[in-house]
């Protein structure tokens, strides 16, 4: 029983990490109707930013995380203005632009930062033990931050004018324009938020694993899986999708192995898409 509870705990922790990764993707898609395939590279840049601020400059890791979120938010604004704006609403064009950006950012990171693995210091060392279940504080931190960000995002969208404007754009772009909503400004802000979230996820993951130019691949693989399962453009869908995939990855290996868990996860996605193509909580 302890093993199963530990497996559930492992799965939920990984699930929240997947949610963190997927949140930014889902925000960008819901507003800009672009699947930002370079989201994994933004996540990677976020991790590098935390490394350079915390390790090279020697600042506090939490300060580094904040700096990384801010820096990547600025990058997001630049990317939206210079690249993605012209492809808003065009899935194919946006996809190609994002793929080009992947190559640019990944190669740039390898050349600029080097191909050697780097590591971010653990933000909170030690292990929390609750009823025999062991949770590394670093992972618990990722969960707390994930939950906090989801709540903040939810409140932002529900309670602020800007959030409501985002909802309006996601529902009907033309109607939003007719209502006088500045779509360009909202898109920039959405992209900034999306990149910020990716940076935070990257920084947290860099402290759990290693920082390397190719680390974005994991983020995209899981991020895309989560938002497809949960529903493109749905924040709560990202949460549900992330936790489901996390639980699969945490529990299935107890009886089979990690590879089987991945297969089951993707099989579930295909099954859901067949019976509900818009995802679990997505809209038509």
């Amino acid at each position: 029983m302890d093993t199963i509870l530990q497996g559930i705990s492992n799965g939920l922790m990984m699930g929240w990490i997947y949610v963190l990764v997927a949140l930014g993707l889902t925000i960008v898609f819901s507003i800009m109707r672009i699947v930002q395939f370079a989201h994994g590279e933004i996540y990677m840049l976020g991790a590098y930013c935390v490394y350079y601020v915390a390790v090279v400059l020697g600042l506090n890791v939490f300060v580094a995380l904040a700096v990384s979120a801010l820096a990547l938010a600025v990058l997001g604004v630049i990317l939206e203005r210079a690249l993605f704006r012209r492809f808003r609403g065009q899935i194919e064009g946006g996809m190609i632009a994002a793929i080009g950006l992947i190559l640019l950012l990944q190669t740039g990171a390898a050349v600029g930062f080097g191909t050697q693995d780097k590591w971010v210091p653990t933000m909170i060392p030690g292990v929390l033990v609750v009823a025999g279940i062991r949770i590394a504080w670093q992972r618990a931190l990722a969960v707390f931050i994930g939950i906090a960000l989801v709540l903040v995002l939810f409140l932002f969208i529900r309670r602020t004018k800007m959030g409501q404007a985002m909802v309006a754009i996601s529902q009907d772009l033309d109607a939003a324009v007719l209502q006088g909503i500045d779509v360009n400004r909202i898109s920039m802000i959405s992209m900034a938020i999306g990149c910020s979230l990716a940076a935070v996820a990257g920084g947290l993951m860099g402290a759990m694993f290693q920082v390397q130019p190719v680390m974005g691949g994991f983020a995209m693989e899981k991020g895309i899986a989560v938002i497809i399962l949960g529903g493109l453009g749905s924040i709560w869908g990202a949460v549900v999708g992330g936790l489901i995939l996390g639980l699969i990855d945490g529990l299935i290996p107890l009886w089979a192995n990690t590879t089987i868990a991945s297969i089951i996860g993707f099989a579930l996605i295909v099954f859901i898409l067949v019976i509900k193509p818009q995802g679990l909580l997505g809209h038509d």
Partner: protein
Amino acid sequence: MKRWSLILLAVILTGILTLGGCSKSSSSPQPSSPSVPQTSSSQAPQASSTSSPQTLKIGVIFGLTGPGSQSGIGWRDAVLLCKDWINSRGGITVNGQKYLIDTVVADNQNTPAGAVAAATKLVSQDGVKFIVGGVVPDINQGVISVTEPKKVLLVMGTNDVVYPDKPLTFSASYSLAAPLGGLYADLYKLYPDVKTMGYIVEDEPGARAVAGISQNIAKAQGFTVLDPIIHPWESTEFYPEWTKLLAEKPDAVDVGLKLPNTLAAVVKQGRELGFKGPMFGAVGGGINTTLNMIGKDAATDFMWPAYDPFSQDAPPMVQQVVKLWSQTYNYKPESDTVDHFNDLWVLTQAIEKAQSLDPVVVAKTFTNMTTVETTRGTAKMGGARTFGINNMVFPPCAITRLQNGSPELVNWFDPWMP
């Protein structure tokens, strides 16, 4: 008329291009060009030792990009340092003619496909007859698939086996399984209460082979051996594997053959999930890199084949290499980095002993050598009884233990396999 003119023009252009292509291919580097060694069918010129040195081109293949590239870059630098050291001593002498080493580096991208591409480039484009480098068995296979058919001599950095049907393939260090005997002996000595062994094994042929040998040694020594937990190649998330393994309550865990970043993750996460017993692995990875990646909190009761190259007790040649390193590069080497100095050094010793630049002749000589000098001291050639061919170098082996965040040398021993 106009059509015929166009056809004639096309034929003339095609002819020009074809002739130009033929001309270019005949002037591109061939094995018989002066700077590249002749095959055995023609004798090397009998030059006096006072004639100017010629160049011997040797290929170098490591993973310079992709996972584990941090180590690959250091290993490459060790080979290049060896080249400079050999050349500073006048190069090598074959039949009275001096040769300076020129290296051509290729990146295997840490994938078998990348290894094939890199080896193909070195052999077909650069015309090398000798190649050094490579540590991951699965990736080494990619290189071997190119070098053996082309009669190119390959000295791998390490490999799990050598092959009787691949006489031109050598390993500059012992099989990755060779330290296991010493690791188990030290485990028994330092942790006498260990009765049950667990295993976390990467899904890679070399890793599985080494794990199999480890389990056999454990069974022979009377340990209870748990079924291995297999994880995907290059995985860095081990909570599911550890959770499953801990349910079976192992006293000690062999973390298996892994790249340094994967090794660090498995050790760190095992400690996070509460495993307090000893861990070990027949892995590479220097002391500082491993310690930094694992983190001081988790770095305890972990043993692996490594030594501190900066220690005053390090072998004399290691100290010399470390000194040269500090004069050449602006970062510190690890023990496994220094070891790759041997990849090129043992090859040049074999060439000088054979007094030939023909890879087939050199291979025959190398196989029949009984000892060869390495940075760790005099190494034995071995493997005939174990693998069917005497193509493996067995330098002395050191075991280091991380204890409470600090490394300590456990012992040196002879990992020779006959």
